[in-house]
């Protein structure tokens, strides 16, 4: 084996640094799913009655559905009766009023994750909601946000404080009938984040949610709902990590975004769930439904995602462009290594006139990773002046990995649609070329990967772009030298 192939192997084998387990007493439901479990979730969270009805409808619908198998993913059947559908740290039974009351072990966990939970980190200028297993444990900067009229709180709290808003919007973008995992999420989701930006308000800081799965044998089902009223603006970031475990754990989240006239929502994800070991054991199954609707004219929704974790990723953040002149964007970097499989992409549904969308997907496969881009651009028959630009690039590192793209265009009206695609292979010849120009092989790979991802990273909020760069570098750099 030459040095270059060693480097190619090593970069695919970087350790996962968030794999620790926090020893925290938790209150976890016995495994299994039934109407009884749903009743108990609703009871535990003291939810309003409409929620129970909605959840039960979702559950009954879910029972009629089959787990989707159309994606370019191979995984063992999921035993839905072998999962616990609710787990919360025990000390959280009476939710803490301030961070001082938060279990120090939890705070320690977030400190290890590098998440600014503590008020003293105000300088970071980011408001954080932290979700640990099934419940939200702390939300920072609530007062400051409240002054601006912004609501940013755990979903469970929003159900108590703003039931009318929830009732009005919940399930309007992703109905429980949407798909198998959306139905499951609607039936059992336990928490998540809720954001409401009133008319004309420019949210004064970045909002951020960090998700952490800790308990074994539990699934995580969170739900995020963001409503941006007329002329408002919000930028939101979510991050995710989980311990290393030999068994697979299920994560099935739903995110709904609603942008009214002239409103703008930027939603960024840095997904770093545990990916499994180099033999492909363990890792999170990440089945997520994310969708936004540009309801109003001149509204804009932008998804940015950096997907580096999970054994399985199944996720297509989409935008329904209903308002005239609305804009949808999707910027994605998906990295698969070890035996990770990702089937990800977006849907841009152009219903309104003069709607525009921009898709930029960058897939990187290393090790035995499998990376699939799946995209749909649909132009409705009565939508005029539609434009879409899609760029879909893949990078292969080594010769055991694979990249696939399934772009789909459905156009029933004259529209301006562009699609560009490229595949780059980093093999020994590319590495040698870079080395001849003075870059060692680690630098060369970091340079090529960063250069490849830069157009997407540029779309992340500044402080997270740096994080994303580091994350990819840590994931890809070998232990050479």
């Amino acid at each position, binding site marked *: 084996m030459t040095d270059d192939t060693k480097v190619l192997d090593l970069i695919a084998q970087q350790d996962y640094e968030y794999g620790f387990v926090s020893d925290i007493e938790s209150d976890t439901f016995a495994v299994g799913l039934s109407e009884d479990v749903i009743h108990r979730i609703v009871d535990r969270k003291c939810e309003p009655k409409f929620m129970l009805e909605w959840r039960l409808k979702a559950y009954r619908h879910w029972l009629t559905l089959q787990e989707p198998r159309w994606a370019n993913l191979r995984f063992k059947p999921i035993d839905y009766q072998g999962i616990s559908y609710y787990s919360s740290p025990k000390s959280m039974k009476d939710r803490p009023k301030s961070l001082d009351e938060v279990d120090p072990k939890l705070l320690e966990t977030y400190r290890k994750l590098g998440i600014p939970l503590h008020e003293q980190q105000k300088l970071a200028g980011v408001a954080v909601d932290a979700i640990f297993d099934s419940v939200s444990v702390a939300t920072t900067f609530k007062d400051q946000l409240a002054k601006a009229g912004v609501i940013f709180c755990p979903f469970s709290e929003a159900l108590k404080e703003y039931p009318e808003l929830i009732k009005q919007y919940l399930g309007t973008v992703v109905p429980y009938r949407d798909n198998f995992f959306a139905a499951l999420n609607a039936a059992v989701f336990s928490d998540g984040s809720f954001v409401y930006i009133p008319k004309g308000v420019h949210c004064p800081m970045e909002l951020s949610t960090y998700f952490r799965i800790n308990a074994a044998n539990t699934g995580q089902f969170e739900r995020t709902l963001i409503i941006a009223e007329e002329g408002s603006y919000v930028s939101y970031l979510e991050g995710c990590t989980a311990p290393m475990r030999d068994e697979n754990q299920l994560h099935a989240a739903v995110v709904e975004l609603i942008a009214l006239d002239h409103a703008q929502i930027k939603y960024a994800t840095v997904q770093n769930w545990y990916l499994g070991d180099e033999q492909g054991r363990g890792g999170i199954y990440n089945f997520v439904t994310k969708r936004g609707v540009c309801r109003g004219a001149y509204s804009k929704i932008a998804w940015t995602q950096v997907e580096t974790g999970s054994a399985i990723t199944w996720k297509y953040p989409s935008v329904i462009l209903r308002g005239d002149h609305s804009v949808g964007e999707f910027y994605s970097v998906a990295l698969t290594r070890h035996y990770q499989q990702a089937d990800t992409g977006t849907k841009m549904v152009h219903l309104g006139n003069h709607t525009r969308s921009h898709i930029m997907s960058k897939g990187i496969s290393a090790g035995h990773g499998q990376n699939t881009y799946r995209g749909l651009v649909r132009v409705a028959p009565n939508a005029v002046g539609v434009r879409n630009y899609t760029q879909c690039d893949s990078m292969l590192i080594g010769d055991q990995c694979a990249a696939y793209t399934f772009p789909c265009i459905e156009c029933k009206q004259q529209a301006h649609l562009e699609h560009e695609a490229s595949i780059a292979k980093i093999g020994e010849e590319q590495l040698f070329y*870079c080395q001849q*120009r*003075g*870059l060692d092989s680690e630098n060369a790979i970091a340079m*090529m990967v960063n*250069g490849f991802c*830069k157009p997407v990273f540029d779309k992340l909020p500044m402080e997270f772009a740096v994080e994303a760069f580091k994350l990819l570098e840590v994931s890809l750099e070998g232990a050479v030298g």
Partner: protein
Amino acid sequence: MLEIRDLTVAIDGESTPILKGLNLSINSGKVHAIMGPNGSGKSTLSHVLAGHTGYSVLQGSIQFMGQDLLVLAPEERAILGIFLAFQYPVAIPGINNMYFLKEACNRIRQGRHEKSLDAVDFLAQVRTHLKQIGLDESFLKRSLNDGFSGGEKKSNEILQMLMLQPKLAILDETDSGLDIDALQAISKVINQQRTPQRSWLLVTHYQRLLSYIQPDYVHILYKGRIVKTGDHNLALRLEKEGYGWLQAEATHTVEGHD
């Protein structure tokens, strides 16, 4: 500057050598041309000098500026001042040409303990060199060698060379794929870059390049060894007569070095 002794090289994993006891000395400031029929080992020689891992050196030595080149990694050789203009530069889609050039430039400068170029100085230098080669600035915005014509790829190699300022520039068939105008432009640049400190190894099939760039020595590489050394006239003779006459002379080989 460069001293190759008894160099015997095979493709990694194979036993039949391609280079069979090659000897060559290059002094500072000299231009050496290497000519030879297809399969004689010209590209192998350039690759081995640059440190390609696909070959194994079975015998012999290479000294460059007093250092044993064979123990050095390709990037260390680059930092020492060896530059290879590739015959077939690889494309790396998605990597911006300018981004790559700046990375390479600053890595090499760091390795030579020189100050990194800031964006302004870098751009100023690149612009000057682009003009010299006759390239448009939009050239920098494209992906590295991706979708480049043969001539553009070769021009890009020369652009990199100008930025990296090597001590030994190995040009592996840089002239093939260039039209007359581009060939003249690049030859002019190379002539401007001839300094007493810089040596050149021009690998070529055609005498034409050598009428633009006057070589100090012309070597004929044949079946893995340098069988004849002369001046520009040797290249002219090759163009007239081809390589056939070498067959007859091959029995009493002349080792070429200066």
